């Protein structure tokens, strides 16, 4: 008998050892440095998480002044966003009762997709491609255009403002876009667009929104917007001082999208899980009680059958996964803003101070940028975050 089992055990061991293609790619250990972790995760992590790491890497690269790296990753992201139509096996799995939403390929919520387009638009403008920059700003608004409440659809301010500015600089009439931007600015008077301004400052600050799941089975997606230590900024160039107030609140954009179609699916999963759990418990309890209480063999068998069915139903309930997908682009800023001014050819030193809600300068965040303006025919585009490296020379 022992001899008979040996080859079976050996074959089983061989079959396990020989199964070389594991179901899940190994997740590389994280170092905490996105510029290290993201390339590793993109190269060897799960394909469904690739976009999230590309998002994070792009934002980090922007703040490090590595715009080529950001461009490369954003271009790949935008290809994924543009080709998401139609059947998607991973998305189908994410809708099934027994798989988590996080099984799907991550592309992010509309505010995350809009931010990808905004960052890419900034880089296009840096490269002198104003019309492609404008295309990105239009796509940023477009990603936000199917909010549940129409008043929050396509209500980013800066993309419309930049759409208008790019159009005006290209010789067109950007007034429609400016009007849309002003209409969405919610009480803020936007500065008039200055097509003659050849130096553009894109400014971002504060920690952006994160996601969490709530509800009995964590089926409800919610956003957490931490308080920002920075409320505004002050730009000093040569002898000029330009106050910079936030034009867009990324946290507001995250929380005003409204319900998703996927929320209904997750809600159905939660109802199914709850119902099967309750039915299974009742059946098990009733079946066992019947089997124990009865002395009739047939009744006992029926009771055990009901208990087994209840167990199966409970197992189905346990296997149901209604948890919302909380993967997030977690290094987004809270606020976006913008300033532009005309500067003559030559070297200029710009200082950007970040201020708290009381107007006090957060001196540890101050950035210095040396601008070398070679020509006034081409825009000098400056991207500054409160997390940017300093000093920079552009």
């Amino acid at each position, binding site marked *: 008998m022992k001899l008979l089992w040996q080859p079976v055990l050996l074959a089983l061991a061989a079959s396990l050892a020989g199964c070389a*293609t594991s179901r899940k790619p190994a997740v590389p250990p994280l170092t905490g440095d996105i510029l290290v972790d993201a390339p590793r995760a993109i190269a060897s992590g799960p394909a469904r998480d690739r976009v999230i790491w590309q998002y994070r890497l792009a934002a980090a690269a922007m703040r490090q002044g590595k715009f080529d790296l950001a461009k490369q990753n954003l271009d790949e992201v935008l290809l994924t966003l543009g080709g998401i139509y139609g059947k998607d096996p991973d998305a189908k799995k994410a809708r099934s009762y027994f798989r988590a939403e996080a099984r799907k390929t991550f592309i992010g919520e509309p505010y995350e997709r809009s931010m990808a387009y905004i960052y890419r638009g900034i880089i296009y403008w840096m490269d002198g*491609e104003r019309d492609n920059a404008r*295309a990105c700003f239009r796509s940023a608004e477009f990603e936000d255009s199917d909010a549940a409440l129409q008043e929050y659809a396509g209500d980013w301010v800066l993309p419309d403002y930049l759409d208008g500015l790019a159009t005006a600089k290209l010789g067109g009439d950007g007034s429609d876009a400016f009007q849309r931007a002003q209409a969405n600015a919610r009480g803020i008077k936007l500065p008039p667009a200055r097509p003659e301004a050849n130096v553009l400052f894109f400014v971002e600050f504060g920690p952006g929104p994160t996601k969490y799941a709530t509800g009995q089975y964590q089926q409800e997606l919610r956003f957490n917007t931490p308080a920002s230590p920075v409320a505004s900024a002050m730009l000093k160039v040569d002898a000029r001082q330009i106050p910079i107030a936030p034009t867009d609140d990324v946290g507001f954009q995250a929380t005003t999208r409204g319900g998703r179609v996927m929320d209904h699916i997750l809600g159905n999963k939660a109802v199914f899980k709850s119902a099967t759990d309750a039915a299974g418990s009742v059946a098990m309890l009733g079946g066992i009680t019947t089997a124990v209480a009865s002395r009739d063999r047939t009744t006992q068998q029926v009771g055990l059958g009901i208990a087994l069915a209840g167990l199966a139903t409970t197992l189905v309930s346990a296997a149901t996964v209604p948890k919302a997908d909380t993967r997030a682009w977690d290094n987004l800023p809270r606020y976006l803003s913008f300033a532009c001014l005309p500067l003559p050819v030559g070297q200029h030193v710009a200082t950007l101070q970040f201020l708290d809600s009381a107007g006090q300068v957060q001196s540890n965040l101050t950035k210095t940028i040396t601008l070398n303006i070679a020509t006034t025919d081409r825009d000098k585009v400056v991207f500054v975050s409160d997390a940017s490296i300093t000093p920079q020379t552009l």
Partner: protein
Amino acid sequence: MMAVLAAGCASSGVKNPSGVPVTHMNADEQGFVAGTGVESQDLVMVADKMSRSILGIPQIANAATPPSIVINPVDNQTRFPINKDIFLTRIRAQLNSKAQGRVVFLARHQMEELEKERNRKREGQVTSSSDPSVQEFKGADYFLTGSLQGLSTRTKAGTSDYILYNFHLIDARTSAIVWEDMAELKKQGLEDAAYR
């Protein structure tokens, strides 16, 4: 036992564990990766239509000497960032290929290099097969340019993108638009409910 071994092989759960071989496709056919933006089949269709249309106009078909054309950048007014010059590159290549010398394109985008080379010749740094002091850079008879304009809609029912491709030829002497043609495409798609 063999069935158990075969069934147990852990490639299950991995999509295309052997990969997907490279698929050769014609540039004018829609691949299995498609979006609602500008794609190669659109480029081919639009560039073919425009180059055929240009060749038929009397200013080119009946010109005594081949007219010189300068290509100006296309204005992309859609929501899709694209390599906008690719349209004019294809139109130019197709015209050069099919027109058999009936049009001449001027390399204005290379002017800086061309001027440097001419200056080298004038200064005797390099040889010259003709008198370098004579101005031989040609002026344009026509400018060829275009625009891409879009209308986009996004609702719960899906995404719809309409793009109007417009190209025109402008007489450099009179500013008259001597030729204009357009092509239009509309695409619609709906992403999986998991993304909505």
